[in-house]
């Protein structure tokens, strides 16, 4: 059976399905191929969405145990882990079916199978039933995403040594959990199990957690997590894991080398990062160039080195974020359709969904120092915010960074409850070239947490009023 399309997207994650939808909207015939069987990619199936379902449920459980008494509520709380997992599974199921509906609505064909690019313009899909389907296509968009990265000498079995995927489906709450990697995935999943009762230790190779985030935020974030009971071993690497009668024995070594130590645990979560997924797609054989880290090299319009082949999302350079893939999907398809698609990488927010949350957009102080840009900073702690007091969530602060001369907002970093929802305001400000004064002069409702952003913006030019 031969078919032909204007655009075929390989990968059904946030990059892929949004690309297929946008293609349909612009009147291009399109299809989206995914081998998983459920659309939505890593994000929806084993990433953002299931983790957020568990983060929310575990947060409520934790609050009921630790916060309720302070608010005058007496309750007996009991954990029903299978019930919590069922909530997660239900949400994921609803959302993946939602993606299929969206594809259908955009008149884009959803194909379940493994895609292989035989030549530019020619794809063979190995379908579930073992048959194959040949597709002729004008434009191929690679949105195959990323896969977990593993530590040499540590084999992930998804039972006791797990990746993020396995950590979302543990059958029981481990007594001890060792998280390898202090990035956002490890801290989120570490938080889930700590709240449900695990003793969590985070081992990080670098001397700080959440590399890439603003340094001051990172330091304070670690302080808050430590207060919650999470343990940290920084500048430390994991050399090996052995199964013992008593669980697992993990061998650690200082990052710079030195005497090894051992630590006992029940579960090891390997979350040291993700790598671009390009295997078995046939990219190399048709001449698509990749960088040393295996990511497809594209130009600013998402064109690869082979005409007619484009790439978006985790499989190319940049932050591995669902919304970044989504933004690139829209821009890439608009470029294919002859329009002008563009992504402003200085205005893409990033969020860590712990409690408190961490959210950031734009430049960090470290980046600006390196670039030699003169900047000013305004800060406001949630301890001075009325709403934060009333909801007993006073950890953290908001920080606004603006150009010293033009006052243009260059970055925002928030550690605090609901930071992820609040960061969009600053993303919009950055997208429109606003000054800190513009945020400061924009009315914010009282009492809300977002007032902290206004007060921090005022602080850039030294007129914070409520502190």
């Amino acid at each position, binding site marked *: 059976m031969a078919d032909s399309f204007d655009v075929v997207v390989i990968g059904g994650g946030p990059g892929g399905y949004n690309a297929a939808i946008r293609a349909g909207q612009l009147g291009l015939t399109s299809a989206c191929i995914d081998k998983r069987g459920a659309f939505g990619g890593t994000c929806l199936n084993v990433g953002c969405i299931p983790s957020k379902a568990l983060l929310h449920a575990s947060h409520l459980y934790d609050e009921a145990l630790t916060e309720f008494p302070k608010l005058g509520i007496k309750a007996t709380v009991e954990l029903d882990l299978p019930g919590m997992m069922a909530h997660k599974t239900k949400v994921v199921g609803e959302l993946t079916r939602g993606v299929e509906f969206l594809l259908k609505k955009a008149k884009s064909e959803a194909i379940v199978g493994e895609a292989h690019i035989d030549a530019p313009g020619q794809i063979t899909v190995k379908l579930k039933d073992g048959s194959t389907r040949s597709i002729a296509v004008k434009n191929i968009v690679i949105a195959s995403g990323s896969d977990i990265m593993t530590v040499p000498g540590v084999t992930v079995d998804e039972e006791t040594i797990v990746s993020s995927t396995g950590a979302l489906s543990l059958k029981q709450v481990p007594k001890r959990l060792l998280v390898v990697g202090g990035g956002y995935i490890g801290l989120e999943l570490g938080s889930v199990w700590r709240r449900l009762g695990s003793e969590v230790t985070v081992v990080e190779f670098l001397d700080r957690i959440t590399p890439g985030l603003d340094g001051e935020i990172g330091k304070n974030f670690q302080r808050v997590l430590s207060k919650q009971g999470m343990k940290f071993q920084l500048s430390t690497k994991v050399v090996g894991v052995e199964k013992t009668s008593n669980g697992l024995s993990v061998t650690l070594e200082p990052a710079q080398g030195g005497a090894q130590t051992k630590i006992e645990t029940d579960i090891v979560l390997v979350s040291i990062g993700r790598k671009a997924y390009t295997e078995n797609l046939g990219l190399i054989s048709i001449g698509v160039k990749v960088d040393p880290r295996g990511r497809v090299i594209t130009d600013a319009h998402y064109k690869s080195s082979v005409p007619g082949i484009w790439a978006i999302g985790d499989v190319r350079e940049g932050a591995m974020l669902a919304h970044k893939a989504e933004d690139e999907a829209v821009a890439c398809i608009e470029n294919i359709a002859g329009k002008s698609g563009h992504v402003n990488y200085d205005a893409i927010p990033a969020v860590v969904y712990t409690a408190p949350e961490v959210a950031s957009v734009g430049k960090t102080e470290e980046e600006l120092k390196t670039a030699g840009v003169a900047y000013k900073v305004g800060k406001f702690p949630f301890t001075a915010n009325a709403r934060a007091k009333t909801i007993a969530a006073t950890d953290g602060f908001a920080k606004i960074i603006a150009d010293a001369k*033009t*006052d243009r907002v260059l970055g925002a970093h928030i550690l605090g409850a609901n930071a992820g929802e609040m960061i969009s305001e600053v993303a919009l400000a950055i*997208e429109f*070239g*606003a*000054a800190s004064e513009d945020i400061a*002069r924009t009315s914010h409702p009282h009492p809300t947490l977002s007032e902290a952003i206004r007060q921090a913006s005022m602080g850039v030019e030294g007129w914070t009023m409520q502190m």
Partner: protein
Amino acid sequence: MSIEIKVPAMGESVTEATVARWFKKEGEAVKRDEPILELETDKVTVEVPAPADGAIESISVQAGATVQVGTILGQIAEGKAGSASAAPASNPQAAAPKPAAPAAAPPPAPVAPKPVPQAVAQPLTPQAAAPVMPSVRRIAEESGLNPASVAGTGRDGRVLKGDMLSALESRAAAPRPAVAAAPSGPRANAAREERVTMTRLRKTIALRLKESQNTAAMLTTFNEVDMTAVMALRSEYKDSFEKKHGVRLGFMGFFVKACIAALKDIPNVNAEIEGDDVVYKNYYDIGIAVSTEKGLVVPVVRDADRLSLAGIEASITDYGTRARDGKLKIEELQGGTFSITNGGVFGSLMSTPIINAPQSGILGMHKIQPRPMAIDGKVEIRPMMYLALSYDHRLVDGREAVTFLVRVKENIEDPERLLLDV
């Protein structure tokens, strides 16, 4: 019932105006559509009519204040009988609902030496038609720098705080050397100087001319034209022309026609640069500079290529009269494709006019002066006029500019060419 008196829309590029004067006082009766106050905008004076029959209930913005499109100027009590407007002086306050501040001072209000407090408080209210960012609004109000005059670097050309700050910086930097270089002695001359706020028209003229100079690669080419033929034609047909068409046969009509013929040959002069594009206009809307007491305005003769000589002359005469009375409408001043200015009426022999941006050319006419010319090897006295064409060299090449001016010259020296279209 109270009805708001609002600043009406005054054309697409006009967002603010100055309240020139109120014709009515609080309490005075008004009829629907009767002019109740006068607004001075960038270019013209606009009368605001009463939105309903009734009496002026309140006046919230006094003369001299700057207002935005949509700003509420006052209220009318609908249907209410007010004091007779015929005798406003006799008892102006009697019918006023509250003892308001003295109403607007009569005529020369806009040139008040100090702005009324409202002048600071009113501008750039959130109702402003063109939204500006809060920081930009503040800087504009504090400094008087109009954001519309600042090149925006934000999304879609939006003016950002940084743009305003750097514009202010360059404004502050610019006048300094002039002050320092002034050769005046140590005498304090303030007492013998008069400081007057620029009128809105003067500010706009200043701004537009400077913008034009800053944007275009402006250059002027000269030629001279022998007016013998056109003058002969004019003296022969002057009376019959005026009798038939009811309008005087001047020289301007000939120049408009001569320019259109030349514009058709050299389309770049009738085009404009817009971003990375060149926009060629296949119509000929010719702006004619008219000097008024308040300053220069350039009303536009629309589709001048389709008008007869009489039609052109009639509309120029009409514009001239109304310009001097300040009665031109905004839309009559917008969107010309080429302009003509005549410095000759004041005796100028030669000048370099400034392009009326975003147009790409302007023809300067000058004084007709008898001069000895070499004609067929003999000296003859001929009525001569120097012509100048200032053009935007970004779009118009020197060859094109010179050719254009030669065409104009040929068409005037040989008006038959216009008839024959050669």
